[in-house]
């Protein structure tokens, strides 16, 4: 992989972490309310996948979508402003944390109802195929979402009609407080895709290079007309489900094990779930720290360059937050305008007027 890609991926992972930590802080200070679902721990997934995609590909995500939006190229300031409900936000302050949309960057939305995104992504893929366009659709979702009927219905139609879509499951082992062995009969999620004849693969979602490589291959197959592909990313969220959730249902030892992203991840991968013991805890790092070390070892960057990078990222996020704070709020008129604005329809009658 070329150096530039590696560096931009590292930068994006750092941006992602810094953005989310700043959002958590703003929430703690009362600047953000509502549900705020954060992504720390899972950065390698969004970064690896989106860097392996083309800018023209379409993205459909969930309520845990700030980082997908950020890596897709939506400015941090426009996302932060949305979290603060400002007019300058990427959804004009009407959507909020769970509903980021950006037409230009082909970000088709963050959605708050689990499972409703599968058909939407499928519809986008249908349109791409229908219009004979070269793009693919990327559909991100959690391990909890695969038990919604729409998942199965959509996988079937995607395979049946060979639609250009990549399903990316962010398997962080939890559906809020319900651990995967208590919500799914088959916990190796990629196997479910096999039931529909969709090529599927399990990937170490804590390793950005592995994610990138698996995505690159899967997208190549999509673009070659081989139909839908499925990747299960094994990952973990370091925080609670949302800022309202302390996540206390998870044993500390388990959280620490993932935070240390060490060889135990492998033991956890078995079908039988067991909580890691204390000595299974390694002295490793989370996905970002691990990738920083990798980049230094491989000579892509030295300590000084890394410090500079961290500083640049911190400055960018601080500026985004300032921008959001200083931005104006939307008005009720803005809300009405967002609801029923339809120039084409208006023109239909203007043109017909005598």
């Amino acid at each position, binding site marked *: 992989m070329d150096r530039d890609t590696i560096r931009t991926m590292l930068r994006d992972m750092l941006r992602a972490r810094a953005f989310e930590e700043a959002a958590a802080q703003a929430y703690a200070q009362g600047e953000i*309310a*509502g*549900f705020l679902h954060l992504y720390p721990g899972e950065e390698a997934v969004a970064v690896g996948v989106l860097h392996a995609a083309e800018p023209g590909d379409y993205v459909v995500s969930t309520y845990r979508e700030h980082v997908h939006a950020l890596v897709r190229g939506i400015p941090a300031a426009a996302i932060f402003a*949305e979290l603060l*409900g*400002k007019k300058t936000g990427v*959804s004009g*302050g*009407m*959507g*909020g*944390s*769970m*509903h980021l949309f950006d037409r230009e960057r082909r970000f088709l939305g963050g*959605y*708050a*109802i*689990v*499972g409703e995104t599968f058909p939407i992504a499928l519809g986008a893929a249908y349109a791409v195929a229908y219009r004979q366009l070269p793009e693919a659709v990327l559909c991100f979702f959690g391990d*909890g*979402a695969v*038990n*919604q*009927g729409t998942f199965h219905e959509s996988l079937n139609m995607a395979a049946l009609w060979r639609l250009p879509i990549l399903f990316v499951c962010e398997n962080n082992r939890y*559906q*809020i*407080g*319900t651990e995967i062995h*208590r*919500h*799914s009969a088959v916990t190796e999620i990629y196997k479910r895709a096999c039931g529909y004849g969709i090529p599927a693969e399990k990937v170490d979602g804590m390793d950005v290079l592995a994610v990138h490589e698996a995505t690159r291959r899967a997208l190549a197959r999509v673009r070659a007309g081989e139909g839908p592909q499925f990747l299960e990313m094994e990952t973990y969220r370091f925080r609670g489900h949302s800022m309202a959730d302390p996540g206390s*249902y998870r044993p500390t030892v388990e959280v620490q094990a993932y935070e240390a992203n060490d060889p135990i991840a492998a033991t956890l991968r078995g079908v039988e779930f067991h909580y890691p013991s204390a000595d299974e805890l390694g002295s490793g790092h989370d996905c970002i720290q691990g990738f920083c070390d990798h980049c230094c070892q491989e000579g892509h960057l030295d300590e000084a360059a890394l410090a500079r990078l961290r500083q640049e990222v911190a400055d960018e996020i601080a500026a985004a937050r300032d921008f959001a704070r200083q931005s104006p*709020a*939307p*008005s*009720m008129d803005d*809300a*009405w305008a967002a*609801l029923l604005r339809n120039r084409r329809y208006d023109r239909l009658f203007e043109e017909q007027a005598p």
Partner: protein
Amino acid sequence: MAELSYWQAILRAHDEEMARDPLVFAMGEDIGVAGGTYKATTGLYAKYGEKRVMDTPISENSYTGIGVGAAMLGCRPIVEIMSVNFAWLAMDQLMNNAAKIHYMSGGRIRCPLVLRLPGGTAHQLGAQHSARMEKVFMGVPGLRVVTPSSPRDAYGLLKSAVRCDDPVVIIEHEAMYNLKGEVPDDEHFTPLEGSEVVRPGKDLTLFAYNISVHWALAAAERLAKEQGVEAEVVDLRALKPLDRTGIAASVRKTHRAIVVEEDEAAVGVGAEVIAILNEECFFELDAAPVRVHARDVPTPYNRRLEKASIPNADDVVAAARKLLGR
């Protein structure tokens, strides 16, 4: 008499009914190990075990259907859907099955399902997490729809719902789980039909339900203090069937009516109540009845706009003054 919060009252009703009848079980997302998003099932998993307090996958339509099927075999399922917004996904089981099985079987098969739905606009949860859906359920023959405004009713309605042989939809409110109120220590049941005059008055009637009862009560207090107006507040409580007799009785006394609802006006509770007034006591009205309701826009995320899109006590006072010409 104990002071309980809304969630504690719901928990107590669950606990009593589960202790009494082994056929009562609870099912829903995160209701077991995690104790429920709003704590209303805290401790039940430890007490009654997984079989009776079942955490479900995210499969709303199917686990609501499980409630229907189990009810047909004599179980008494209390199904919680984490937020009313997700009940849209369970509509097939609710509308096509729960509501109609008793009818379609010629009255031979009962479906005593209880569906608990935390509803309403909480705090910046955005357009997909702020729905009020009572109007949807009210339109379906075969369902009962009730909605508690206090811990006492949250307890009593759930108790009655479990004992009732019809499917009952209980719409709670996400912003009221910590609301405290007196709940009698003795076991008691709140009727699934009928309204309640929660504040008597003679000058006009404020019809309300669920959280809007609190806006109406606050408005009545201010109208009394500031205007010397005695507003009667009627908690509709049962939305299906609506209490035709009680609604008309109040207006025969006050001759003026305002309906206060958190939802948008179209095809809603206010429209129904006013239709009832037209049908039952049109000539008793001294002024055209009025609705105080949400703006016709999906709930905005921005805090100020969110508040502006939902009515409050000030809006009720303003509507009352206008109606009375003061």
